[in-house]
């Protein structure tokens, strides 16, 4: 598996996309620090980018990489390598390099500006951890979708749908539900519902750390009310880790059952 990982990293470094991704985060974060000295404003802008863009890029990149390396995958399948190593190796290559670009892109400006102007290391750490977890989760989901769909158009369509649902439509549905059933005690359902959305979980994680009530949103407020800030963060982190393992397990399972 190490060799597969090595080749995918080699391949990804050659493709240069990772440098764009890194450059984007670097410039964006530098720009934020330059525009505003207010650390919580910077953190909120970073959060929005992390919640929307990181899942989208991870999804698209995972799909692109999987479909583009199909030839190489077929070649590897006839070699004496366990099947699941091929896919897990490629997945770790993609998720790892996405995370690395993100970490360096946001981390470097933070080291230079953030640490100098603020003592809030915990907040930035939370941001970075959320971004890395989301990179792993969404590239995992996209790998799974690609494994299950040989048709690229279908694969891309499904993946975008999943992203739209989790990143955009989810909030709308939740609000609609709240408006509709305002007579019922919905808080516990909302708590349950957010467990099914890694993006919402990340938002809760970051906002609980930031502790700005006005931005908490409904599910965040519920988390705070029922679990308190600390327990709320621990719970959302644990569920997020579970979300990392779920696609990993599904990729393994799907790869063991597929005909090539």
């Amino acid at each position, binding site marked *: 598996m190490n*060799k597969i990982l090595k*080749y995918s990293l080699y*391949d990804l470094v*050659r493709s240069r996309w990772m440098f764009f991704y890194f450059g984007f985060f670097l410039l964006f974060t530098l720009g934020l620090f330059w525009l505003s000295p207010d650390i919580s404003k910077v953190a909120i802008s970073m959060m929005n980018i992390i919640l929307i863009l990181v899942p989208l890029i991870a999804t698209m990149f995972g799909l692109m990489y999987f479909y583009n*390396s*199909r*030839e*190489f995958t*077929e*070649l*590897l*399948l*006839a*070699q*004496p*390598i*366990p*099947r699941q190593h091929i896919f897990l190796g490629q997945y770790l290559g993609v998720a790892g390099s996405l995370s690395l670009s993100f970490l360096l892109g946001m981390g470097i400006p933070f080291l230079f500006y953030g640490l100098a102007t603020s003592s809030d290391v915990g907040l930035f750490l939370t941001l970075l951890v959320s971004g890395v977890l989301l990179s792993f989760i969404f590239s995992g989901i996209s790998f799974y979708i690609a494994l299950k769909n040989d048709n690229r158009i279908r694969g891309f369509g499904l993946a975008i749908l999943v992203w739209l649902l989790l990143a955009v439509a989810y909030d709308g549905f939740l609000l609609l539900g709240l408006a509709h059933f305002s007579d019922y005690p919905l808080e516990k359902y909302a708590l349950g519902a957010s467990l099914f959305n890694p993006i919402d979980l990340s938002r809760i994680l970051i906002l609980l750390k930031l502790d700005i009530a006005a931005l908490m949103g409904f599910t965040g407020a519920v988390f705070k009310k029922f679990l308190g800030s600390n327990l709320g963060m621990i719970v959302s982190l644990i569920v997020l880790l579970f979300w990392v393992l779920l696609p990993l397990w599904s990729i393994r399972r799907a790869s063991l*059952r*597929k*005909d*090539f």
Partner: protein
Amino acid sequence: MIEIEQLYKRFGKNEVLKDLSLAFRQKGIISAILGPNGSGKTTLIKSILGMVLPTRGRIRAFGEDIRGRWTYRDKISYLPQIARFPENLRATELFDMVKDLRQRDTRDKALIELFELEEHLQKPLAYLSGGTRQKVNLVLTFMYDNPVYILDEPTAGLDPLSIIRLKQLIHHEKECGKIVLLTTHIMSLVEDIADEVVFLLDGHIHYRGSIPQLKADYQASDVEQAIARLLAGEESPEKAFTLNPS
């Protein structure tokens, strides 16, 4: 060394192999797996390599059930029917990668010379001609000295001279006591190098026998005629048709 028991495979509703049992045990024998397009030759081969997973049935290689195993693949050289490579790589990089993965002695130099590939080694694989890609495919397959060779349409796209060299190569492996399975639609190739024929039809083994046996059974002067007669019971080889737009 390769034993297939009651192999059944369907893709969705499409039953491709129906309880097929087959063994290749004898060293130094070249078996030609024949059958019409879509009869399941590639599916059978890919099942042996663990790329296609049987719906039912059992396959053993070198005495061991292959299900969930992968080490046995180190002893099988496989030539895929369609040569698909990472397009942005060069042939040398591809060879180096496979060598790095398998860490075994190789004989790629001699093969590159045999197929006169030197001048193409530094070009991206996407820019190679179809026949040249097939030669790269052949080098990748034959660069390891293995007890079993499985070749899915090895001559596809090759020029006559390269076919002669390929036949020499296959013959050499046979002399060294290897088991060779190959599929092809070129009956003269079968006539030239194969020792026996396995004919797949409708998911079953319709016929299996040595070349002289095949010719005797169908009172044919060559393999092509024998296969035509073998199929005659099923359908007539020639078919009336018009090409006018309707």
